[in-house]
């Protein structure tokens, strides 16, 4: 089908851009920033599936990010597991937690769902802070090992860049496939009208739960990659603010847009860097941007800019 070949071309192009960037850029600083964008893209992608397509809000996804990071930290450092084994174990644990949390929480709706996820996120964060014997408490967790696969060491910035973006491309493909399938249509149906979706046979509760778990898995993967990149984690990185950051990325990029996740993640990662000179004004600008985009471009930058472009085009046609 024509749509499919166009998509294949786009993804091939994307892979090429990543390959070339990785080869051309040598500064570890820039490579690390780009790698952070990749990790943030994974976070945004996961939440986007939940918020953008299934239409459910979560204000606590920082918790899953944290479980991914702390999970692998604990397994690799305390239990001396290989990181490549720690990954599936952590993912499995996150799936379990997401199921347990999701089943009662997704019965709530709208505001209440947001509140439930908020509460869950705060409790997990407090757990990270207080359970010092396991997590290292507020002072954090040190000594997380770097990743290596046979002869390839991912301790170098370049190799880690490729690793993370490899996962990102894979995740894009996974999301794309889900969206353009029976499942994706059912999700969009739920978003458009839950009552009607149920009336045509969609098991809305089960599907919402599945997407919730999927989005948690993405966040946990991001956590895993984050932990083995920075080697030190602390509860602050997985706080309420972190959850809000993930929501911001989805919102800025545009909900229900896979590429929007990339845009949102980029903006959010680069903004503090650009504002570094004005570190005082970082929060002010950050909050201002959030408000302005939501007030004037509530569909996010991607959709909003596209809409403006279309409208401008229509004006010229007259």
């Amino acid at each position, binding site marked *: 089908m024509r749509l499919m070949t166009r998509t294949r071309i786009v993804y091939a192009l994307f892979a090429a851009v990543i390959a070339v960037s990785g080869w051309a850029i040598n500064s570890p600083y820039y490579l690390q920033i780009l790698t952070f964008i990749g990790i943030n893209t994974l976070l945004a992608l996961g939440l986007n599936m939940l*918020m953008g397509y299934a239409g459910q*809000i979560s204000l606590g996804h920082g918790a899953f990010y944290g479980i991914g990071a702390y999970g692998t930290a604990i397994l690799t450092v305390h239990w001396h597991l290989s990181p490549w084994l720690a990954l599936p174990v952590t993912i499995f644990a996150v799936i379990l937690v997401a199921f347990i949390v999701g089943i*009662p*929480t997704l019965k*709530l709706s*709208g*505001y*209440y769902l*947001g*509140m*439930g996820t*908020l*509460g*869950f996120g*705060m*409790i997990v964060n*407090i757990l990270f*802070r*207080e359970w010092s014997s396991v997590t290292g408490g507020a002072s954090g967790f040190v000594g997380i090992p770097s990743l290596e696969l046979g002869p390839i060491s991912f301790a170098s910035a370049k190799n880690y860049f490729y690793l993370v973006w490899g996962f990102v491309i894979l995740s894009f493909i996974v999301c794309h496939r889900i969206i353009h399938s029976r499942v994706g249509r059912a999700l969009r149906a739920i978003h458009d009208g839950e009552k009607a979706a149920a009336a045509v046979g969609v098991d809305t509760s089960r599907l919402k739960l599945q997407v919730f778990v999927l989005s948690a898995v993405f966040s946990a993967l991001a956590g895993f990659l984050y932990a083995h990149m920075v080697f030190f984690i602390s509860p602050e990185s997985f706080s*309420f603010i972190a959850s*809000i950051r993930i*929501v*911001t990325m989805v*919102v800025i990029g545009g909900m229900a847009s896979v590429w929007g996740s990339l845009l949102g993640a980029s903006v959010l990662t680069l903004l503090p860097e650009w504002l570094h000179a004005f570190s*005082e*004004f*970082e*929060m*002010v*600008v*950050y*909050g*201002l*941007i*959030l*408000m302005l985009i*939501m*007030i*004037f471009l*509530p*569909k996010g930058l991607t959709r909003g800019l596209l809409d403006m472009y279309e409208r401008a085009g229509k004006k010229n046609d007259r």
Partner: protein
Amino acid sequence: MQEFLQYFFSGITNGAIYAVIAIGFSMLYNSTELINFAHGEFVMLGSMCMITFVGAMHLPLVPAIALSIACVTAAGLIFERLAIRTVKNPEHIVLIIITVGASIFLRGVGMIIWGKDAFSIPPFSSHPPLDIGGARLLAQSLWIIVIFLLIAVGLQVFYKKTLTGKAMEANAISKRAAWIVGIPSRLMVTLAFGLSAAMGGVAGVIIAPVTMCSYDMGTMIGLKGFCAAMLGGLGSLWGALIGGFLLGILEAFGVGFVSSGLKDATAFLLLLFILYVRPGGIISAVDVKRF
């Protein structure tokens, strides 16, 4: 016995604070169906204004309190005018994120104006603490409780006896019906924002002497106040009351008898509990009384 009383006093003091904050949340939700995530920041502004007026400018207490509350109310009104009324697509999720953005913005402003240090001011009066059954009750705690009672009574009178209050309540129950009888809906929303912000300011004012105030104090306390409002029943004055005190007391006893690490968790555990068991809050069980 002495320990029990001490925790109890601590509990009702914090409870009164949570109740005032919860009232702010409930009041706004009642009139606009909006949950203002920036409410905690209004509390912070109230405290920091007191720090400036009393601590830096050495104004006498009463004018400082009045000025602080006025400043926060103004901030609330400006926020409503600029950020809420101008919204093109007032869906819930959009509004939630706007208030979240406002929260971050205000925190940034707070940091610019007051820096990262923590301040405090002396208590409202220099009375020595009361000794009741071996437990100490600070004079400031009594002030907090008294002021809270004044507010609760004042609001009751406002909503039940004054025309404006009744108009607000009518608007909350049915915008259309209120519009038909001539109640200006937009004004009511503005009023609700102003009043809610004022409540936040009051909370900030009464907290200032009992805690170290800094630019980032708003988030946690706002969230806790919100939990209290949900616990009691969002949109209900009595709910805010019950929720606030219940949270304060459970928190104090949790800290005292279980562990201090539990302090912050108490609010959120209660939130989850009430969401799963009875999302309408405690009040919804008794009757569906609105503000």
